[in-house]
């Protein structure tokens, strides 16, 4: 129950913030931070709770993005219907990849590498096959209206991505409170022990990857609605996969607020370094990389772990 209260508080706070913020810089920052949080949450469902590290989540991101734009441009669907198709098709691709790799018992680095390979295959296909527009990419015509899921003001976009993030939080909270979540984390911690207790690892992991892919597809659909251009590299390139996994790990995998916290911190770090050291090209990324290493060195269990340790220490202190 406590989670629901915090999620509601988070949602209201961000919604109010988005209406209060006037400056374009901060509204864009908020939107992109939420977008990064969404990707991290999606990855965390499979990586954090399912224990299956994927290096190719761009596969689902790109599927969602392409379906979102092609459904509108070639099938003439309304943006919101396209969104449903995007999330569904990403989820289906997730189930497909999951079924293939889990059935053959791929775990750990093997699973990570097969997802990397799938993303690369989709990128090459997107380049060669015709309907995705190949290397030329595909444009989403500018029709700013809520019905077309394109917003003149950033606030509309923020509310949409906030909706996805809140949905992600609710699903993660449900996961922590449900049989499916208990089984998923059991399989993560010890697959054989879980099987002896009646858990079917394949079905559970498939559930996790489908959920994870669906949310990643939502992220892809959101991206293309905001930036309105997509090419195979943006859709299936490794950058998105790395961004989602780094934010989730830095924030603390297998936690409710870890991915959101990680995404916020890393996005702030990236913006801060870019603004401060923008003039010397590369310096900002060097600092980003160094801070990333420092975080891993000194906060091994992730930023949200810090919160837990502090609270635990505080409680011990009080009790002691």
């Amino acid at each position, binding site marked *: 129950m406590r989670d629901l209260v915090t999620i509601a508080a988070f949602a209201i706070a961000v919604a109010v913030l988005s209406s209060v913020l006037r400056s374009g810089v901060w509204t864009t920052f908020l939107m992109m931070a939420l977008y990064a949080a969404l990707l991290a949450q999606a990855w965390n469902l499979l990586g954090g709770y399912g224990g299956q*590290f994927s*290096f190719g989540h761009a596969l689902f991101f790109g599927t969602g993005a392409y379906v979102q734009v092609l459904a509108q441009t070639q099938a003439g669907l309304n943006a919101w219907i396209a969104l449903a198709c995007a999330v569904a098709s990403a989820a289906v691709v997730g189930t497909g990849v999951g079924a*293939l*790799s889990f059935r*053959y*018992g*791929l775990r*750990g*680095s*093997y699973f*990570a*590498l*097969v997802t*990397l*390979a*799938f993303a*690369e*295959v989709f990128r*090459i*296909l997107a*380049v*060669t096959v015709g309907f995705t527009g190949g290397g030329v990419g595909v444009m989403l015509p500018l029709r700013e209206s809520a019905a077309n899921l394109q917003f003149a003001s950033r606030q509309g976009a923020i509310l949409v991505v906030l909706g996805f993030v809140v949905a992600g939080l609710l699903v993660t909270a449900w996961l922590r409170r449900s049989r499916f979540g208990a089984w998923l984390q059991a399989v993560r911690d010890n697959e054989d022990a879980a099987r002896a207790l009646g858990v079917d690892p394949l079905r559970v992991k498939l559930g996790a990857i489908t959920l994870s892919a669906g949310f990643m597809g939502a992220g892809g659909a959101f991206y293309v609605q905001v930036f309105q251009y997509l090419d195979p590299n943006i859709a299936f390139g490794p950058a998105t996969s*790395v961004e989602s996994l*780094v934010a989730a*790990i*830095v924030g603390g*995998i297998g936690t409710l607020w870890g991915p959101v916290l990680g995404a916020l911190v890393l996005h702030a770090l990236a913006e801060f370094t870019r603004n401060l050291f923008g003039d*010397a*090209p*590369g*310096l*900002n*990324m*060097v600092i*980003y*990389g*160094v801070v*990333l*290493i420092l975080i*891993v*060195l000194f906060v*091994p269990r992730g930023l949200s772990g810090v919160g837990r340790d502090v609270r635990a220490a505080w409680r011990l202190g009080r009790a002691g």
Partner: protein
Amino acid sequence: MLDVAILLPSFLNGVTTGAVYALIALGLTLIYGVLHIINFAHGAALMVALYAVYFLKNRAGIDPYLALPLVVAAMFALGYGLQRVVINRAGHGKDENILLVTLGLAIVLENLALLFFKSDTRTIETAYTLTTVAIGPATIALTKLVAFAGALAAATVLLWVVHRTDLGRAIRAVAKETQGARLMGIDVEHVYAMSFGIGLACVGAAACFLLPAYYVNPQVGSGFVLVAFTIVVLGGMGSFAGALLGGLLIGIVESLGGLFLGESLGQIGIFAIFIAVLLFRPQGLLGARP
């Protein structure tokens, strides 16, 4: 399209390109085999080595092939230092942390290069860059043949080190069972650092063979990392002979695939094999059952 005049050169081209891929993959498979992590900084290490070869050639006038021992030693030292100082501390026993550290290192190395060496593409000019050797209908660049010979030599040296020397036994022990090795009195941290050092040394050797036929800029590493992963998996995680065989095979597939399916679709051949091997034979061609 199918006559020998095309197939043979394409095959030879594939084998010689594959040799350089194998050399890069040898380092990666050693690091994966011993440290059980996927080294995301491998591409950045290759870039650093390529710059080293470039500056040795342009500033100090040392030919890439002569610079081999220098670059190999320097990369070994870099690898040993990085593992000892940064990577080993970050582990805390969790694989995802080591993975994140190598990712951080890749970002730092790539952008340091961008900062100091600017971002323009650099190449070197050697007397033999353009000379080619005729083998039947095929004309193969000399640099590629030297690369092929070099890769085989490096692989055999590595195999000898791992199978015939005490260090090699220690490496294999740590790879198999870290705690057990520690009990036998093996300084595991030292072996980790040695493996990472040798891993980057292989990359150094690859750079010396690669630069004469290629170029260097801060982003050059990323193009090779994915192929190296494929080869490591194809050959069998942790197996050197596997990495060598895998490298040659991938080179041939890329070359012939490119010939028949067109250059960019040809790349799909690599990843199709990658997925097939992972699904149907995860232990790869020569690896041990995972």
